[in-house]
């Protein structure tokens, strides 16, 4: 993977919300990662961990950021408005709520052609061809849907339309913010299959924001786990799911309700279930207030994100301290 040039490089990104009175909330900090063509990187974490702020910062929807965001090697924050607009087709986004992210007063044809118009495709016939191609790609029949309005579609179909709208400009990178969280199980499976298929067929790179680890297991090649605004662990999905290094990753994995009554219920104990406020993060390691393995060192010294042997990094003084409990879980035995 590292032989290719990354489509997206994020370096030391911080996302800051001014709170008035000179106070600020640093919703994300020290965020660095790459996404390569054909690769899906998942940003995982619980609410308030900063994962959506990172996605919005990449899309340039966030006013106050620090650090670098490079798309095709170009630093987005240094680009002029025109240059940024010219680069936009390369990175597109889909949102969580498929229905509210489509204009209810526009027909599907207008919704899907809008990005092409904006980027200057003047030839109406070419636009129509492109829209038909993309609808085919997402499994919708152009004849049947072009003249209809979003409210005539189900949630799953609306998410297909959102994906089509994002793909109409042939992006290299798709940023997906919780794209299947609002969908029912059977529909979610359809959309996940579609995203996997598109990644493979088009060599699309994906940044996939999700709180659902089972969904992430299905979609991601690499995973970054975020906690209180920072990356706790990042690396190949296989290594992380098979043996989490960071105690938070381990706890998160052990809390996933698995559709298997025989899955050994070895929930890892966490001290107090509450996530501290990002306004007043604890000193030392951010996870120390909930970590069952935290000691004095953890409470004083914040751990750096450090490389471990298997191409992954964790911000922990005692990596793998909780790992084995998860690895001992019963092997798959689903019907």
């Amino acid at each position, binding site marked *: 993977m590292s032989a290719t040039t990354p489509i997206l490089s994020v370096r030391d990104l911080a996302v800051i919300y001014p709170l008035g009175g000179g106070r600020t909330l640093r919703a994300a900090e020290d965020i660095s990662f790459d996404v390569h063509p054909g690769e899906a990187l998942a940003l995982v974490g*619980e*609410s308030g961990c900063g994962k959506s702020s990172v996605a919005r910062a990449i899309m340039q929807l966030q006013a106050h950021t620090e650090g670098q965001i490079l798309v095709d090697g170009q630093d987005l924050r240094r680009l002029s408005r025109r240059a940024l607009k010219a680069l936009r087709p390369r990175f597109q986004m889909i949102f969580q709520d498929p229905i509210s992210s489509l204009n209810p007063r526009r027909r599907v044809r207008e919704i899907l052609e809008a990005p092409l118009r904006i980027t200057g495709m003047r030839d109406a016939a070419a636009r129509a061809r492109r829209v038909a191609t993309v609808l085919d790609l997402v499994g919708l029949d152009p004849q049947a849907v072009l003249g209809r309005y979003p409210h005539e579609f*189900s949630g*799953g179909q609306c998410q297909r339309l959102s994906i089509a709208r994002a793909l109409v400009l042939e992006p290299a990178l798709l940023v997906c913010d919780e794209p299947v969280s609002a969908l*029912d*199980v*059977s*529909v*979610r*499976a*359809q959309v*996940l*299959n579609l995203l*996997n298929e598109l990644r*493979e067929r088009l060599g699309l790179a994906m940044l996939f924001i999700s*709180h*659902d*680890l*089972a*969904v992430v*297991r*299905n*979609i*991601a*090649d690499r995973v970054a786990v975020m906690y209180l605004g920072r990356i706790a662990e990042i690396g190949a*999905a*296989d290594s992380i*799911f098979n043996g989490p290094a960071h105690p938070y990753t381990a*706890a*998160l*994995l*052990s*809390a*996933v*309700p*698995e*559709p*298997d*009554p*025989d*899955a050994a*219920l070895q*929930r890892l104990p*966490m001290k*107090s*279930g*509450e*996530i501290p406020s990002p306004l007043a993060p604890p000193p030392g390691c951010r996870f120390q207030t909930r970590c069952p393995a935290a000691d004095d060192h953890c409470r004083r010294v914040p751990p750096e994100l450090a490389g471990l042997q298997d191409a992954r990094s964790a911000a922990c003084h005692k990596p793998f301290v909780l790992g084995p409990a998860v690895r001992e879980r019963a*092997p*798959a035995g*689903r*019907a």
Partner: protein
Amino acid sequence: MTGEALLSISRLGVRFPTPRGELSALEDVALEISAGRTTAIVGESGSGKSVLSRSILRLLPRKAILSPDAAIRFDGLDLLRLDARAMQRVRGRRIAMVFQDPMTSLNPVRSVGAQLAEGMVLHLRLDRAEAGRRAVELLKRVGISSPERRLEQFPHQLSGGMRQRVVIAMAIACDPELLIADEPTTALDVTVQAEILDLLRRLQQEQRMAMILVTHDLGVAAGHSDDIVVMYAGQVVERAPTRTLFREPRMPYTRALLGAIPGLRDAPHARLSTIPGRPPTVYGTAQGCRFAPRCGQRQPRCELDGPALVADPTGNLLRCWYPAGAGA
């Protein structure tokens, strides 16, 4: 099913009048809940699971039309035919409910203590001081630290998980025999969800309550129920002990649903099985099996004739002409 059913529902149908005709939200629902067991009601949105849980407590909107021969029996009482005052004595005391969103089920302008005491004063005729002492006790039982201080606080001062703990404390305040938890963890983060589910399970066992756990998440149901009822388009389509249902799902919808869930131990990018189309919205009466249009095992009969919910030799319920494992 062990022992006498605490709650038994039969022939329950619920319709809502709409401009497009009568919407069939529930049809011919039959269900038995035994004391000391947790029954999960699982289904996708629109399957009728919440309408079902609300109809038990008679919390349906006024315009809802119930089938004339419907019966909901709870410990000898016919809930659908109780007068309002008698129903009041059941609701909150003998049958309690926990809703999805803890913020909207708590009153934002009353303290935690006042809200906790209300039910105990009303139902158990406790005086304020006694109710206050019991409130501290209850908060401890649901795992809330420094309970005395919490009593003074207001809902907005608590985190989501903490609020749901308060709601649960309110629900168990009068020692109900049946607790209905309707998507109790859907609004919560996964680590908090795990704690709340464990808490509900522990309380259910300690108090020997019956519990109905309404959820869209088969993973939640798998780890926290004894029996599972699967609903589709307003009907119960399968009911079996949890382990049996996951090991040998028989109704094609149950099977398809299980195949559509990504698992932590699956291979990355594994293709999930999907169910084509989407659940029907049924106006008036449906012809044939409601799942037939999406069913891979569909036969001509399925489209003409809706199967009844029948018990197999082991007592498990099934609504299908051609269930898996029938040897036909």
